[in-house]
């Protein structure tokens, strides 16, 4: 009787070890997939930031040179626009979720963008009055990512 119990215990321990190992391999693979996605997402995010940076700093600066920040678009920025319709940087704020397609095995990311004015003496601090610096935060999401990838860049005028 005791021999049978010991044999069962040995089998259970071996199966437990096997399950732990399987879980460990699965976690390692999920981590690799997520890491790969992060790399692709970073490239996509940099592309989007470059594209945003190619637009005018503000609607007011698109056609003329201004020196007083009070002439810039006041807060809150409009939301709900389309990525492809944006003409200046703050037009990207709160756009409708945009699907960015890469040429890597058909991987797509859902992109959301937030634009804020930032303190020119402390570029990490958002402010509620117009300044000549805008921070743009691009968030890319995809089901294989453990968490969304966020990239922030500050654009300054002139």
């Amino acid at each position, binding site marked *: 009787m005791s021999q049978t119990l010991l*044999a069962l215990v040995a089998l259970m321990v071996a199966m437990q070890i096997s399950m732990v190992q399987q879980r460990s391999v699965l976690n390692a693979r999920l981590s*690799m997939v997520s890491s790969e996605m992060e*790399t692709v997402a970073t*490239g996509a995010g940099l592309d989007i930031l470059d*594209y945003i940076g190619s637009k005018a700093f503000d609607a007011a600066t698109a056609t003329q040179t201004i020196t007083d920040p009070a002439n810039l678009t006041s807060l809150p920025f409009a939301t709900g626009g389309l990525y492809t319709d944006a003409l200046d940087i703050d037009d990207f704020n709160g756009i409708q979720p945009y699907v960015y397609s890469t040429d890597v095995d058909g991987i797509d990311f859902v992109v959301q963008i937030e634009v804020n004015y930032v303190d020119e003496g402390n570029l990490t601090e958002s402010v509620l009055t117009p300044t000549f610096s805008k921070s743009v935060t691009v968030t890319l999401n995809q089901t294989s990512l453990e968490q969304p990838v966020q990239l922030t860049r500050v654009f300054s005028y002139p």
Partner: protein
Amino acid sequence: MQFLIDHITATMIGGTVLLILAVAQFRTNEAVVDQTSYYASKKQVLELTNMIESDFKNVGLGVPPGAPVFNEVTPTAIEFNLLLAPGDVATSAVRYEAVPIDTLELDGQSEPLFQLRRSVNGVLTGQSPPRMAEFVVELRNIEGNPVANPEDTETIHVHYALVPPFNADKGFIKKTYWTRTFLAPNL
């Protein structure tokens, strides 16, 4: 007879336990090799990216108006002019070329492997590991559509993939990708 059955049963149970442990150990080893290989490949992709980015971001820098920026654009090679260093008085011709090196069986298909070579004014100055499975350079407009005439280029799309150095055909991730579209402010 009972003695014999007990021994056979014990041997079978012991064998099963040992087999389970051996398989678990084998798979752990495989997973470790797979992970090591993947991260080695990723590191090489990022190092290669550093080399490529500084060139492609500055395509056309210092090229006089009217002079050609691109000397050659083919599916496997691109050559363009730019000022490489702030003190330079003349532009240099930087060339990237994917040279076929080998082939590899991936998912039952034979795929060519390349080595990306960078040369400046005809002198080899850098190269990728000889395991590049994909290399695409495309001249595009700002909307992301390919342009027929290189002089109309507004962005340069670069895409490449490296195959991990070990067990590439059996690994979980068979290629490590990098893809970027550079705005070329000097064009």
